[in-house]
């Protein structure tokens, strides 16, 4: 029951924050809303018992947003932004009915008896081994090819980031 309450709480927070992301006019607010949404999502992970995922979500995404933040401060042409502040705030209001519908649906689902706590497998695993070990063993035995591919992917993205981020490379186009 408690985890169910937590799920709905975090879920609605993340929805509200998500709405904030799309409706906010100031990029700084966008980032803050996004931060709220991601924290709420990690809250969902925690309430579902996926602690490692939750904590990593917190760590990785929070840092990611720090990067976004710096990007915004360093790259957004604030002067132009201040000139056309005619941002349509009504979008946020217009979205509200959809949210209401969504909630109604969610309640119907909840009442019909489908809930997360029924999923006993997750609970047993976490109780016996701990979240991290479970994931670790799975990752490094069953999915090790994916894991190695992941490293290549990371390498590629690293090279990509360096090539894109460096101004010097832009000179010959």
């Amino acid at each position, binding site marked *: 029951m408690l985890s169910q309450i937590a799920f709905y709480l975090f879920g609605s927070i993340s929805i509200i924050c998500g709405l904030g992301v799309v409706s906010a006019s100031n990029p700084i607010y966008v980032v*803050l809303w996004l931060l709220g949404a991601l924290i709420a999502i990690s809250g969902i992970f925690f309430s579902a018992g996926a602690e490692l995922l939750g904590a990593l979500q917190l760590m990785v995404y*929070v840092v990611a947003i720090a990067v976004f933040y*710096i990007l915004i*401060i360093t790259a957004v042409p604030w002067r132009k932004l201040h000139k056309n502040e005619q941002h349509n705030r009504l979008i946020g209001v217009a979205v509200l009915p959809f949210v209401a519908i969504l909630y109604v649906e969610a309640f119907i689902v909840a009442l019909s008896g489908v809930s997360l706590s029924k999923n006993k497998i997750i609970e047993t695993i976490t109780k016996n081994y*701990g979240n991290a070990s479970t994931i670790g063993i799975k990752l490094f035995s069953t999915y090790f090819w994916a894991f190695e591919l992941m490293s290549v992917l990371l390498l590629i993205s690293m090279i990509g980031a360096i090539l894109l981020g460096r101004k010097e490379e832009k000179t010959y186009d």
Partner: protein
Amino acid sequence: MSIVALGIIIAIKVVVILAIILGIGAYLTLVERKVAAHIQRRPGPMVVGWHGLLQPLADGIKLLTKEDILPSSANFLLYNLAIVMALVPASLVFAVVPFGPEIHVFGYDIKPILTDVNIGIIMAFAFGSLAVYGVALSGWASNSKYALIGALRKAGIIISYEVVITFAALGPIMLAKSLSTYDIVMAQIHQKVWYIFLQPISFVVFVFALLAETGRVPFDIQEAEAELVTGFTVEYGGMKFGLFPLVEWYVEVLSLSSILTVLYLGGWSPINIPFVGFVDPFFFLGPWSGFIWFIIKVTILFLLVLWLHWTLPRYRIDQITTIAWKVMLPLALFNILITAFIAPLLRG
């Protein structure tokens, strides 16, 4: 365990952490001022109370009765939100710090840790890095160039040292085979060795990262007084101004020192002779000696930080990031490889 008892236990733990943050955090200002003063051959605060013992109180009252100024062209919401975002995550780190061994009171087994979870150490790092938002936001919201530069510098430090600190911490985690802070200490007690003896490289890297994340000398560039006046706090006044150093210099140093104690210094365990055992001069206190040891270790670390702070000059921002990526990170990676060789040798 009944709900009421659980509630009381949690309440007590929360109050203790609150006391650490506010009471000890405030009194550390006095400790810092005294240490700095004596290093510089001054007596430090001497007027309010015996040897200035009431000075933090007087400071607090002074800060609270200052005028609340919002700089023109600052963003009211973000300006105030920044303080909340600096204070809250930094204090949440204490939730995963085990202050001592399991104790037995009134028929209950109580672990002196607020949330004992499997992934405590990751949570500590996550909350620690969340604190950057307070600083970064304060710089942008107060709409002053000095504040902005200071905030961006802090962001730069966090960007560089966040990865270093996690890589450094991987060593002890590999040895302890657990992400839970409580279990890491227990592993050290079982293996009869503090990980500082097995992980000297990662310890040094961690200490540097600690100094960097908390903005202590030689990494105090975000408020480098000579260039940026006080950096991101330049537009803040009164208690708002007081909270930033409290968070950065005291709460964060304390929390990261606690984490460091947990990872490398065996948490609450007494003096260690590697692979032989522990020597406890406070054995007569029973399980309570653990708390004493924890406090002693954190105090020593804090004094070490102060000692460094009042001796060294400071780096430049580009040198800080370069050191992080070109020295610290390769060292930490190297350390992981070495640990991978020695970890199977340990029985735990």
